[in-house]
């Protein structure tokens, strides 16, 4: 039974009984079979879970589970292979795109993607990233940028904003000492080997839909063999930003989005 629960004078919340909404005709979302039943270890409010789900949905909708090989990075998503119900390889820190290159070169007709964080892709793996993109490997790189090293406990990332605090920039990132945050996606978009390059987020339903479309594109474009697809997901890290999930999304919108603006950087057929 649905009921109103009083929280104070003129203040109440509507409590909806589970059985009143969980019916077949109300079903709007099912877990795709490309996700396992393993509960994700990600912190509450973290964008990784949503990004994982979008990739899994894309693989399921395109019906390419039996033709897809993923590469997990080192970082918070090091256990990505526990959550995707697909064949996966866990790479060394920074080397996911080289590992993906090796797989794609010997299995040119399969769908290959790497999933990498900012430290992995834009610090220790910069060389591999640039050259994989420059060779135009027919793979998808999904790049999660939350401006921090999550797994190791909140150290500065190459994408940490100026003034942003981390455990290794306790007084805020100072350009004179640590240089500027790296907009690696803008660099990558310049390379002729890159066929599709876009920056998305997963903080609102509308952005989630855009992100999903970008990821689906990244898989579909592999069939054309015209080059690499690169999808940056600007994301949050409530735990290491020391914020609630809501605060972290607000902070991301106010601080990350101005420096890492959402939108397409390179779209097939629309060369700037």
């Amino acid at each position, binding site marked *: 039974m649905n009921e109103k629960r009083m929280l104070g004078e003129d203040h109440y919340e509507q409590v909806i009984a589970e059985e009143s909404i969980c019916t077949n005709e109300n079903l709007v979302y099912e877990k795709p079979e490309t996700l396992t039943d393993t509960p994700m270890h990600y912190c509450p409010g973290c964008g990784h879970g949503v990004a994982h789900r979008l990739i899994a949905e894309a693989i399921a909708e395109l019906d390419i589970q*039996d033709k897809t090989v993923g590469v997990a990075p080192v970082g918070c998503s090091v256990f990505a292979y526990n959550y995707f119900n*697909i*064949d*996966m*390889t866990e790479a060394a820190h920074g080397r996911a795109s*080289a590992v993906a290159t*090796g797989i794609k*070169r010997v299995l040119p007709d399969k769908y290959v993607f790497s999933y990498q964080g900012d430290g992995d892709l834009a610090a220790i793996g910069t*060389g591999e990233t640039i050259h994989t993109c420059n060779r135009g490997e027919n793979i998808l790189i999904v790049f999660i940028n939350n401006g921090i090293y999550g797994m190791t406990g909140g150290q500065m990332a190459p994408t940490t904003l100026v003034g942003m605090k981390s455990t290794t920039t306790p007084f805020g990132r100072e350009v004179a000492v640590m240089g500027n945050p790296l907009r690696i996606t803008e660099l990558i978009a310049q390379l002729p080997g890159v066929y599709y390059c876009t920056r998305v987020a997963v903080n609102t339903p509308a952005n989630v839909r855009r992100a999903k479309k970008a990821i689906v594109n990244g898989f579909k474009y592999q069939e054309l063999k015209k080059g690499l697809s690169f999808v940056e997901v600007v994301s949050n890290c409530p735990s290491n930003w020391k914020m609630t999930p809501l605060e972290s999304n607000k902070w991301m919108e106010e601080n990350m989005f101005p420096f890492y603006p959402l939108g397409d950087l390179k779209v097939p057929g629309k060369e700037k």
Partner: protein
Amino acid sequence: MKELKLMKGNEALAEAAIRAGCDGYFGYPITPQSEVLEYLAEHAAKRTGMVVLQAESEVAAINMIYGASGAGKRVMTSSSSPGISLMQEGISYIACAELPCLLVNVVRGGPGLGTIQPSQGDYFQAVKGGGHGDYKLIVLAPSTVQEMVDHVKLGFELAFKWRNPTMILADGALGQMMEKVELFPQQPRITDVPEWATVGKPKNRERNIITSLHMQAEAMEEINNNLQKKYKAIAEEEIRFEMIGCDDADVVLVAFGLVARICTKVVDLAREKGIKVGVFRPITVSPYPYEALNTLANNVKGILTVEMNAGQMVEDVRLAVEGKVPVEFLGRMGGVIPSPEEILHKLEEKFVGVLA
């Protein structure tokens, strides 16, 4: 009909890779082994469709190998000492994930940037680990250009038999010198997919995961126990060595690779002077022929180990011999090759008593 050719070591090795049905080569140029990549770039794709890719670094190359071998393919890389050092992290991952692949080190003099001349200074790195953690490679030590060819085929066979990375530990001279070689016929490329390979999960099997990460200490120890069990089985089945003139020898020279060949010349020189000398040559330096050498030590008066390094394999020789007879050492470093005469001189000097 035998197919005989006069070939440079590196090119013969590359030709053998094509003939062994290699699916992919990922590498980065470095002297003295760049001919491997050059030869493959020219010949491989058009003959067998083999993938040949010049990577942006040795770090990238070994990780391409990790990905491609995980996809169940017959893949290899080659490099020389500083480049092999850069690959160590990836080799450790490959060993832990139990993936088959062939690695070739055409060793040059070190440490550091060193020289481009031949050396055996990477023995420890090759046979004792090199990268982090407890793992072992199967390591083959060719002493002729013919073995540069034969060990490619054998190396792939061993790698797939044991799901373990196999290394050919050559040196700059073997890579650069020309010799007559007999080439084996073209082998087909792999068509069947190993059950563990990441190639896309069909509905009717569990997903395949290639990883070296196991967060629970007990699980990681279990992985280690299984690896150690495998290394023990490899040591029981795969030890290869050669003995030349050891039957009646008073003194035995122990050497691997090119140096073992120089030592066979010493056998002739010594026997002309009435000194009965033999050569013990490990062909697999990992696993090492400890037992055979231990048995041999019962019948000789002394051992001289000769290497192109400061004394690396001699530690394994001493482990094998267990103090039964004196084990002396002659080493040249930095790219210098010892001459038969200086080995003979050292032998006479060290064993003047026992040979009298």
